[in-house]
């Protein structure tokens, strides 16, 4: 979650997470809640470092749900869903992307702070900062 410059390409360390949707009655649920979006107020996001970041963040994980099983954590920022970019999406568009009825599986690219630090420590300080 490094500072992003609007208009510049964003570089981040991401983790691939694959979640299988669970069928509950008529609905296919993933077991987490999202917040954020370009039409929302970024200042109220408790998980972002940069309070101007209007990305989609995971705000809650249902314990024992599919997302929990797939190791999604609260506070993760969703960068891509099934190949579609989520960094410049409205809240409703993001919701629609995640709840497509035709898809059983969603492949997310998420980023979190601990990822960057892990890479840094594993590479022993030669991490190229942008």
């Amino acid at each position, binding site marked *: 979650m490094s500072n992003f410059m609007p208009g510049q390409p964003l570089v981040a360390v991401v983790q691939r997470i694959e979640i299988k949707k669970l069928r509950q009655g008529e609905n296919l649920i993933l077991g987490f809640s999202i917040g954020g979006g370009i039409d*929302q107020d970024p200042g109220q996001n408790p998980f972002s470092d940069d309070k101007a970041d209007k990305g989609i963040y995971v705000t*809650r994980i249902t314990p024992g749900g599919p997302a929990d099983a797939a190791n999604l954590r609260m506070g993760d920022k969703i960068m891509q869903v099934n190949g579609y970019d989520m960094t410049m999406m409205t*809240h409703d568009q993001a919701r629609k992307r995640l*709840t497509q009825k035709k898809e059983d599986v969603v492949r997310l690219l998420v980023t979190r702070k601990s990822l960057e630090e892990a890479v840094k420590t594993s590479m022993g300080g030669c991490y190229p900062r942008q």
Partner: protein
Amino acid sequence: MDTESTYSGYSYYSGRSRGSHRHGERSRDRDRHKSRNKDSRSEKSVTINTPPAEPLLGDSSVRGEQVQDDNWGETTTAVTGTSEHSLSQEDIVRITKDLEDSVGLDCRRYFTLTLAVILGLLVFLTPLAFLVLPYILWPEKLQTCGTACEGLFISVAFKLLILLLAVWALFFRSPRAGLPRVFVFRALLAVLVLLFVMSYWLFYGVRILDTQDENYQGIVQYAVSLVDALLFIHYLAIVLLELRQLQPCFSVSVMRSTDGEKRHYNLGQLSIQRAALAILEHYYCDFPVHNPALLSASKSRAAKHLAGLKVYNVDGPGNNAAAGMAHSQSRAMIAAAARRRDTSHNELYYEEAEHERRVRKRKARLVVAVEEAFTHIKRMQEEDQKKTPGDVMDPREAAQAIFPSMARALQKYLRTTKQQHCHSMESIQQHLAFCITNNMTPKAFLESYLSAGPTLQYSRNHWLARQWTLISEASVTSGLSDGSIFQLKCVDFSLVVTTKKIPYIQMSEEYIDPKSHKFVLRLQSETSV
């Protein structure tokens, strides 16, 4: 018999007195004088009106005498005068000062007054002289005065009348005060007017009198131009003397040196002496009256601090290191004072709490007594006049009738708050009659005794300071500037004045379009997927 009477009163007070002997004697005499003022023919004692401030050294010097109280007969002198009115040294000094200063001031005042009158007459008569002299000196050569010329006569007459009224309004007012130095602007204006009139006379003398000009209309126009210019000079005088100091430029803070009473005033651009005058006029209206009796407590505490330590010079009178000795002495005293266990703060706290309680108790008694006294009097209605014609009193008699029932409580309260010398019995009765006449409630009557009012409201002998001295490092005719400090000293205290300039304010504008007030909702939704 005289010595007997003084003896009996004195032994009652000797055990209790903590201040100087003289103070005890004086208060006793004053009490006696107040209580038996009818039959005091045999009372041969000194009555002094105002207690002067206690001298600091006087306290410590009579402390030694207190130990030998039993031998007072040998060591003290009983002062017996043959009259009941005698003056203290202070009164004499004050009277002589007033005399010599009033004579000096009057001389200067009359001198400036005569100068001003002469200048005024010169100015007023000059245009008339310009108009009249041609008719006197060369009447046959003059052209007759046509209509336009005669119209100018009316204009001259009215402008002169306006000038006369304006000068009277601006300059001929009774002076409020005598200032130490000349009023610079007035002097400059007088010089300007003099030069102006002189130059007009010069021109008139050379070009008109010598050549005996026949063009009378030109002469009249010349006189009209003089009067116009004089009116403009008067306008200049108004701006310089009155208008310039109206806009506030400085904030002055005035602090009384004895008890720290502080007030702030806004003044315009004034010279230091005029600013001092304005401040003194505000002082008489705003500051509570100066009460020296309230300062005796802190002085006695200071005396106790000083008297606690004695420093002895063991090495004998060594002159070579005299200055260093004094230094080390004072440092030793300060160090010893710091190390000593000082419980005077404790005493002060309990003393003040006790005093507060006492004042409140006396005040409660006083309020009750006054309210009860006021119920004895009722304003007489018209119809009562026919029913009970007896025992009708005017306000003064009514006040005298109800005064005794509250006198004791009032006197005790005034003594506790140390205000007893500010109010004489006569003034209290006068105030009571005044309140009764104007249908005031007891609370309204009491207000002037519960809090100290401004100095002007008290009797004349409390305007003790009619003679003020201005002490300033800058010249007193120079203007006020930021950070200038000066003092106004009178006999009992001094007022220290500091000035601060009101800052220059740079204001900019910002235009807000009324249609630009728009708002959006702050969304923070959370959806579960």
